[in-house]
């Protein structure tokens, strides 16, 4: 018998991530979601371009609108993919063999999180030509894409971590997806409040405390009002804190609570 000479790969999260990416993209799910996303962005760009031509929408506002939808939907895609990571494996009966592999569960979690995050990266990449098309001529494309990429990354990390966290504890994949989407809707709810409700100290506090509304507000200030990066930087506090906090939470939860069945030990 050959003595076991294999050692745990040092960066096993890259192996997990690579195979999760293959599954997501070559399996077709990622392509389907990004196809739906590109159809949405195309329709939105067409509508905003038409409105701009009719002078209903200022050019900067049309860029901002498209960018904000792209950021939000990109983060939503990451959430949807992340909500399937653990509960989906558990439901399909494939989690046990992964848990038996000699790799730390933190690495397993990171690999899966990375694959889910790739969806928002792809969504943002798809958005670039649309933003360029809408924003050409007024010198805001660079700032719009940079701020959109930064805020989009923060929100995608936050939502992918949230989805994975829910998935670690969810009893079924359906529960995981439902709870994740419910939480996302709750986060988006303030954007639908009447403008009066978004004013005053309470309104502003809610906007600043909510990572989604705060992030999008920040992007809007740069794209529409032409503010400098540093001018409204405090609006980035909640997206940064949420991304860092939930990334930490999911790392801890993945390492300690990713079990074969919900509620079992180890």
């Amino acid at each position, binding site marked *: 018998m050959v003595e076991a000479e294999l050692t745990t790969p040092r960066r096993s999260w890259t192996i997990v991530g690579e195979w999760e990416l293959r599954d997501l993209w070559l399996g077709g799910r990622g392509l389907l979601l990004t196809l739906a996303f590109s159809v949405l962005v195309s329709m939105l760009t067409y509508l905003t371009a038409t409105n701009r031509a009719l002078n209903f929408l200022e050019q900067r506002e049309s860029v901002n609108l498209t960018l904000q939808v792209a950021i939000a939907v990109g983060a939503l895609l990451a959430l949807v993919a992340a909500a399937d990571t653990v509960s989906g494996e558990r439901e399909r009966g494939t989690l046990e063999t992964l848990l038996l592999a*000699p790799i730390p569960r933190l690495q397993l979690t990171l690999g899966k999180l990375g694959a889910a995050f790739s969806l928002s990266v792809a969504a943002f990449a798809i958005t670039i030509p649309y933003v360029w098309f809408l924003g050409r001529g007024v010198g805001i494309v660079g700032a719009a894409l940079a701020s959109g990429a930064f805020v989009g990354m923060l929100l995608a990390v936050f939502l992918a971590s949230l989805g994975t966290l829910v998935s670690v504890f969810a009893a079924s994949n359906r529960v995981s997806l439902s709870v994740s989407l419910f939480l996302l809707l709750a986060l988006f709810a303030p954007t639908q409040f009447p403008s009066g409700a978004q004013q005053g100290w309470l309104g502003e506090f809610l906007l600043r405390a909510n990572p989604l509304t705060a992030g999008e507000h920040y992007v809007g200030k740069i794209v529409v009002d032409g503010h400098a990066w540093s001018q409204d930087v405090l609006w980035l506090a909640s997206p940064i804190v949420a991304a860092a906090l939930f990334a930490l939470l999911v790392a801890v939860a993945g390492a300690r609570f990713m079990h074969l069945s919900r509620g079992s030990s180890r």
Partner: protein
Amino acid sequence: MSAAVEADGVRKLYGELVAVEDLTFSVAPGQILGVLGPNGAGKTTAIRVLTTLLAPSRGTFAVAGVPHTRPLEIRRRIGVLPESTGYPERQTGEEFMRYHARLYGHARASAVAVAAKLLADVGLADRRRSLIAGYSRGMRQRLGIARALVNEPRVVFLDEPTLGLDPAGQRQVLSLVRRIARERGATVLLSTHLLAEVEEVCSHVLILNRGRVAALGTVSEVARRAAAPRSARLRVAPEHVEEALSVLARAPGIEHLARADGAPGSLTATNDGRTPNGHMNEALRRLVETGVPVLSFELEGARLSDAFLAMTEAG
């Protein structure tokens, strides 16, 4: 030589429910240990504890010489085929194997080579590029066994590997189990419901009942230790049934006589279990001396099945 698996007073609780209680046993390297028990006996829980998927509530164990407090190192040295495990339907058998080979530390090139070799070993070489979605249950079980061998494990845990397989599939899997022990020198823990499988491939047997060890030893030791009543099934010419019943009723040690279902003239005789062989031999001798034509005579009992039933029903 240190034991391949050694458990000492392992207990596993699910809330208030005791799934495994005081599990104490050891398996020497190279043995094939059959783990038997009725549904809910704790076989799968015991395997999940020993493979570090579940933490023991109490007790200690070591696998391949590694204490349970170092689960990653244990996982590096074991191979496991879980019960009713799932497979990624959109991957091919080769991709699945390569992925797991990488997870166990193989470099890219070595993962390709080990995947090809193991798939050939389990008879899946010609289907290695087919999607797992198209695999039969037997093929999936063989793929699972191949996956369990990617790290050249010193101990292999197989939880119900023949569940749901047809007889040909069962035979293939059991043949693989024998080869794992013979050619690789690995210790195998084979959990199963099928007593015939244990009698066929295992050198030793562990019977679990209600989470506790009911018996442990070689297959023949356990069968003997059960002191299960021996019985015989015989067939005499139909016109001699009454005479045969009368002769057998007078034979020493025969406790119970009955007509059996099946061919005309079939009877069953059960002895009192104290001197099994002698009683049945004497009964047969008397039948022959009396001139009753004995068309067939088959001893039953003191087999693993009797031991299993005696130990699990009594518990």
